[in-house]
C-alpha cells in the first residue's frame, strides 16, 4: 500500500509536544486525561437523560 504515504496517514493534529497540566493542590493531571475523565462523566449523564428509541414498541408491542 505504498500510495498511502506517511503524509496521508500523518496526524491532522500533532500531539507530539509536552503535555499541559491541570494543577490543583497536590493534583497534577495531564490535560488529555482530564478531558477523557470529564467526557466520561458527560457521556454518563447524557446516557441517563437522553430518551431511548422504541418507546412505542415497549408500550404496545411485545409478547
Amino acid at each position, binding site marked *: *500500500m505504498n500510495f*498511502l*504515504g*506517511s503524509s*496521508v*496517514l*500523518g496526524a491532522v493534529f500533532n500531539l507530539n509536544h509536552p503535555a499541559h497540566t491541570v494543577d490543583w493542590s497536590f493534583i497534577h493531571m495531564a490535560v488529555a486525561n482530564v478531558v*477523557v475523565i470529564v*467526557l*466520561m462523566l458527560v*457521556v*454518563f449523564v*447524557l*446516557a*441517563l437523560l*437522553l430518551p*431511548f428509541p*422504541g*418507546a412505542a414498541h*415497549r408500550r404496545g408491542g*411485545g*409478547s
Partner: protein
Amino acid sequence: MSAAPPKPQRPSSWTVRVREAGVAALPPEKLLPDGQPTYVASWIYVFGVATIASLVVILISGSILALKGPAWWHYTGVGHFFNSIHMWAVELFFFVMVVHLWGKYWMAAWRGGRARVWMTGAVTFLIAIPTALTGYVSQQNFDAQWISTQAKDGLNSVGVGAFFNVTNFGQMYSYHVWLLPLAIVGLVAAHVLLVRNHGVVPPFDLDKRAAALSAAKPDADGPAAASTGGQS
C-alpha cells in the same frame, strides 16, 4: 394408589450430560433472545455491547500488528496507522467499560442472584489493566523503556517481579498477544453468558419496598413511597 414414577436414569455419557446442562442453562431462546424486558429503555444499556465492540476492534487491529511483527509499526506509515487504531480502541474500551460499570453499580445489578455477573465484570476490568501494561512495555520505544523500568519497582515490591519481568520483552509480548487476551475473552464470555442466563436485572420494585417499609417502620419513606404506588 398409583406407583411413583420411575426415576429418570442419569445418562452415563459425559457428552450428553454436558449438552443437557448447557441446553438447560441456556436454551437457544435464552442464549439469543429477540426481545428484552420493557424496562430495558435507557442509553446506559448500550455501554456493555460498546465494550465488547471495542474489544473486537482491539483484537482485529492487534492481530494485524501481530501478523507483521512488533517492529513493523515503527518503520511504515500503514503500520503506524494500525498502531494508532489499536491505541485509540484501547482508550475507547476503558472509556465505555467504566461508564458501563457506573451504570451497573447504580442499578445494583448484582441483585437477584447476579453476584457472579458483577464479579466476572470486575475481574475483567482488573485483568485489562495488566493487559494494557504488557502492551505498553511491548512498544519497543522510549515509552516502553520508561514504563518497564518504573513498573518493575511496584511489581518487585510484592514479589510478582520474580516471575513476571516487565523488562523482558519476549515474555511481555507473549503475555500481551496471547495469554492475557485469552483470559479477557474467556471472562467476557462468562460474563455475557451469565447475563443471558439470569436476564438483565429488573428495576428496584418500589411498590413492594414501600409496602415492606410502611409495615416495618411507619415513618420511613412514607410520602415518597406512597406516590410511586402507580397503576397502569
